[in-house]
C-alpha cells in the first residue's frame, strides 16, 4: 500500500518533473494545451456531479418552501393537498427504524465479530460467508422486497403487512453494510491490544469483549448510523411489503395494523399530477434530506471526535 501523494509530495513530484523537463527541453505547445484541456475536463466532471447535488437540493427547497410548516408533521395524509401532511408516515418511519435498529445491530455486530475475530479464514464456509456478503451488498433493493413479500409477509414467517415486516426486510437489506463497517472498525484496533490481553491470561472472548470491542465502538456506531441513513430513505422494498400507499392513521404497533413510511408517502404525492401535491412531496423530501444530513454529520462528527490513532 502506498500513500497517495499529499500536497507536499506532489510539490516535490512537480519540481522533479520540472527539472527533468528543463533538461529535456520545454514541452511543445500542443502537449501543454492537451494537458490543460484534460485538467479542465476532469475538473468539470467533478463540478457537474456537485452541481447536480446542489440543483437537487435547491429544487426541493424552492418547490417545497410554501409547505414547510408545522402542519407537515401534525396533519395526516389527505386527498386534499392543502390539508395533507406526513404524520402517519413519519410515525411509521420511526416505528420501522426502531425495528431495524433492534434487529440489525446485534446481528451485524455479531457477524462482524465472528468473521473478524474468530473465523478461520482458510475454511471454505467462512470464505463462503464473505463472498456472500459482498454479493448481497449488490443485490437490487427491490429483490429484497420480493424476499420480504414471499417469506416475511407470507410464507414461513407470515407476519402480514405490518411495520415489523418492513423493518425485517430493510434489516436484511442493510445487514451487509453494517457487517462491512463493523469489520473495518474491528480491524482498525491494532493486534497488540489483543496480544496484550491474551498475554495477561484473558481468553479470546475476554480480550474481544473487554479490550477490542470498547476500542471499536466509535467506528461501529458510525457505520451503524450510515447504514441506518440508507435504510431510512429506502422506498422500493417497502412498496412490496405493504407500506400501504395511503394510510390516514398512525400504525397501532410493530406487529399490527397498516403502516406507511415517509419515502413511500413522498412517492405517493409525487405520482399525483396536481401541482399542490408536488409541493407537498418536495416539502417531504426536504424533511427527509435534513434528517439524513443530520445523521451523516453526527456520524462524521463521531468519527472525528472519537477515532483513535494507534
Amino acid at each position, binding site marked *: 500500500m502506498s500513500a497517495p501523494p499529499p500536497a507536499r509530495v506532489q510539490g516535490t513530484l512537480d519540481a522533479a518533473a520540472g527539472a527533468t523537463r528543463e533538461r529535456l527541453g520545454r514541452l511543445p505547445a500542443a502537449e501543454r494545451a492537451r494537458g490543460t484541456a*484534460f485538467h479542465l475536463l476532469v475538473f468539470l466532471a467533478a463540478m457537474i456531479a456537485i452541481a447536480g447535488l446542489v*440543483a437537487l437540493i435547491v429544487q426541493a427547497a424552492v418547490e417545497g418552501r410554501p409547505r414547510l410548516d408545522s402542519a407537515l408533521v401534525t396533519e395526516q395524509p389527505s386527498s386534499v393537498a392543502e390539508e395533507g401532511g406526513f404524520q402517519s408516515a413519519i410515525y411509521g418511519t420511526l416505528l420501522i427504524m426502531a425495528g431495524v435498529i433492534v434487529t440489525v445491530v446485534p446481528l451485524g455486530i455479531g457477524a462482524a465479530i465472528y468473521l473478524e475475530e474468530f473465523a478461520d479464514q482458510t475454511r471454505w464456509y467462512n470464505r463462503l460467508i464473505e463472498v456472500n456478503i459482498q454479493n448481497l451488498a449488490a443485490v437490487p433493493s427491490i429483490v429484497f422486497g420480493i424476499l420480504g413479500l414471499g417469506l416475511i409477509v407470507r410464507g414461513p414467517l407470515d407476519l402480514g403487512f405490518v411495520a415489523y415486516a418492513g423493518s425485517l426486510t430493510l434489516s436484511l437489506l442493510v445487514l451487509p453494510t453494517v457487517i462491512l463497517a463493523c469489520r473495518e472498525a474491528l480491524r482498525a484496533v491494532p493486534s497488540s491490544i489483543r496480544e496484550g490481553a491474551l498475554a495477561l491470561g484473558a*481468553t479470546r472472548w475476554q480480550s474481544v469483549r473487554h479490550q477490542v470491542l470498547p476500542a471499536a465502538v466509535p467506528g461501529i456506531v458510525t457505520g451503524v448510523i450510515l447504514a441506518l441513513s440508507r435504510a431510512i430513505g*429506502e422506498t422500493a422494498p417497502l412498496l412490496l411489503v405493504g407500506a400501504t400507499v395511503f394510510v390516514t392513521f398512525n400504525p397501532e404497533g410493530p406487529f399490527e395494523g397498516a403502516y406507511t413510511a415517509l419515502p413511500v408517502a413522498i*412517492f405517493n404525492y409525487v405520482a399525483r399530477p396536481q401541482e399542490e401535491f408536488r409541493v407537498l412531496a418536495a416539502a417531504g423530501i426536504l424533511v427527509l434530506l435534513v434528517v439524513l444530513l443530520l445523521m451523516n454529520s453526527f456520524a*462524521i462528527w463521531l468519527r472525528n471526535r472519537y477515532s483513535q490513532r494507534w
Partner: protein
Amino acid sequence: MASRDISAAVGPAAPARPPLTAAPPRFGERALIALLALCGVVSVATTVGIIVALAEPTVEFFGEIPFGDFFSADAWAPTFANPTFGVLEIVLGTLNVTLWAILAGIPLGLGAAVYLSEYAGDRVRRVLKPALEVLAGVPTVAFGFFALTFITPIIRDLWPGFLGDPPGIFSAGAAGLVLGLMIVPIIASISDDAMRSVPAALREGAYALGGTRLQVATRVVLPAALSGIVASFVLGVSRAVGETMVVLIAAGATPNATLNPAESIQTMTAFIATTATGDIGVGTITYKTIFAVGSLLFAMTLVMNLISIRLVRRYREVYE
C-alpha cells in the same frame, strides 16, 4: 510462578511445554462464539431466502406460461384480459434507461475520480469527498422527484427540433440521466480508491522520465488501477439496472420495445413495483409474474457481479 517456569525452561531435563496459546475458553464461551457464527450465517440464509422466495412462484409461472413465450412474445401485457408475456419489452426498457445512465455516469464518475486522485489538492479533496458521499446518500425518491420536476422540463425546453417530437412528461432519457448522476459517487469513490493505491514509485518513475501530468494519469495510473475502475463501472451499472424509484417516477409505465430516450417506457423494476402495489390476489398468474421478472432481474445482476469479480482477478496487478 515465573521463576519456576524459567528454571524449568533452562533446566537440562525441561519437560515439553505446551505452545504459547490463548487461555482455554471458559464455560459458555464456545456457545457464545457459536451464537456469533450464527449471526454470520444469517447473511447466507438471506441469499438462500432470496433464491427460495423467487424459485417456487417462478417455477409455477413457467408451469403456466411456456419458457419460449416468455422470451419471444412481442408484447408485455400480463394484466390484460388477454395476457401476453413477452418480457423482452421490459428488458429493453431497462436497457434503454441503463444505456443513458452509462453514457452520463461513467464519464462523470471516472472524470471526478481522476480529478480527485491526480489533480485536486488536499483542501479541495476534503470538501469534494464528503459532498460525493452526501450525493450517494440521497434517497432514490428524491432523485425521482428531481428527474420529473427538474431534468424533464429542461430536456423538453432544450430539445432540438430535428430530433423529432420532444419527450413527454415521462421519458427514458430523463430517468437515465438522473440514474447516471446517482451512480457517479459509486464509480468515483471506488475508482479514486483504486487510483490512490497505485504506488507513488510508479508516478515518480514516470515523472522522472519526463512524463506530463496528463501522461502519468492516463498511461500509468489508469492502466495500473484498471481492475478497480472496471469493478466500479460494473457495480454502477448493476445499481442502475436494479434501481426502482427513479424509473417508476420519471420513466413512465408503458412497456415499449425501444431504445429511444424520448419515449415513455417501463423497466423490469418498475413493473414489479407497480404490480405489487396494485390489487392482486395471491396465487394468480399476475402475482407469479412479479417473481418471474424478479428472478430474471436477480440473475442479471448476479451475472454482472460475477463478471466484475472475474475482471478484477484478471487485470489485478499486485503491488507490495
